[in-house]
């Protein structure tokens, strides 16, 4: 199963992504309120594995653990994700453990779950600069390392039309 998080408005989603998504996918879009992570660490030390904020995104850690592939479809905002996609990603913190390990000589989080996921990111937007593409590429690589992904892919789309062609 793929867990897909996107920031497209409903008409854009219907036009460009209804064909991209499969029946077995779990899709998270802009609907409903989402609270920002407040850095309380409650998902690590109060209710391990589950966020303490009471909204429909509190189980993001478990939802990530349940998928084979994690797909983000986001406008490229300054070389990163859009505020909404970033917000959902921030709420997946309970997917990892508070403890540290060393990978490639750097500190990273230990994994809560033994299984690995694939990480795929589609950035879209007109007029992305070279710097924004480069930063986005580095960001996805760094996220993949922290999520202990089995592999990752980054794609850039100048228009939503080319996103439709991905499938």
């Amino acid at each position, binding site marked *: 199963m793929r867990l897909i998080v996107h920031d497209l408005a409903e008409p854009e989603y219907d036009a460009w992504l209804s064909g991209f998504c499969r029946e077995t996918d779990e899709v998270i879009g802009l609907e409903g309120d989402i609270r920002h992570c407040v850095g309380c660490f409650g998902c690590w030390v109060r209710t391990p594995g589950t966020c303490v904020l009471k909204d429909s995104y509190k189980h993001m850690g478990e939802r990530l653990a349940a998928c084979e592939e994690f797909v983000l479809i986001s406008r490229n905002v300054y070389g*990163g994700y859009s505020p909404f996609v970033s917000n959902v990603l921030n709420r997946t913190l309970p997917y990892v453990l508070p403890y540290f390990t060393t990978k490639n000589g750097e500190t990273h989080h230990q994994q809560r779950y033994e299984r690995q996921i694939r990480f795929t990111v589609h950035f879209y937007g007109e007029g992305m600069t070279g710097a924004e593409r480069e930063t986005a590429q580095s960001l996805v690589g760094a996220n993949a390392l*922290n999520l202990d992904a089995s592999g990752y892919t980054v794609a850039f789309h100048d228009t939503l039309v080319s996103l439709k062609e991905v499938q």
Partner: protein
Amino acid sequence: MRIALVNGSPKGGASNSGILLEKLKPLIAEGNELSVYRVNVKPLKPEQYGELNEADVLVLAFPLYFDAIPSHLLRMLVEFEQYRQSKQGNTDLIVYALINNGFYEGHQCKIAADIVSNWCSRSGLRFGMAVGHGAGEMFKSLSRVPLGKGPLKNLGAAMHQLSAAIHARSSAESLFIQPNFPRIAWRLAATHSFWHAQAKKNGLRPKELRRQAFQQSR
């Protein structure tokens, strides 16, 4: 000159970003007007965007989230970019970033510094430099340690370079540093004095922190 200090920690009370700003303040106070803004889950008011837009210097202090800028602060940056499209403000506003991350190595803040720099390009702002510091959660226990001493020796040197750049309103090479404290000792302290102590406060044993919520629900 007018210097706006933005504390971008999402926490409600004391924060590591706040501690870093407090350490910076005495170095840049002389001859300048300092104003502090708190951007957490509450967004800034329109008049506050107006104040930021008229400042001479903007210092963004924030924690690293998923190798980038926390989403609540990112929203503020997007809103500020839009605000500047409607109101011109100071065309020579320069931005500095003070980033702390929960890992040990300061260089893990580099991508977030690049995002701030890209935001500056989009928003008609000048990017000054960033200071990225590792082991951010140590700051609370080190808040009384003088800057430039013991574990804060590297931070002291970096803050002096940052303050010199702010006084001159100039751009400089970003600095990514860690505390003068061995990584292994920091890691042991984080595990036992921080995570296990927090677990105990919540009535949990250390091994319960490894709970696999996904498997339990099935």
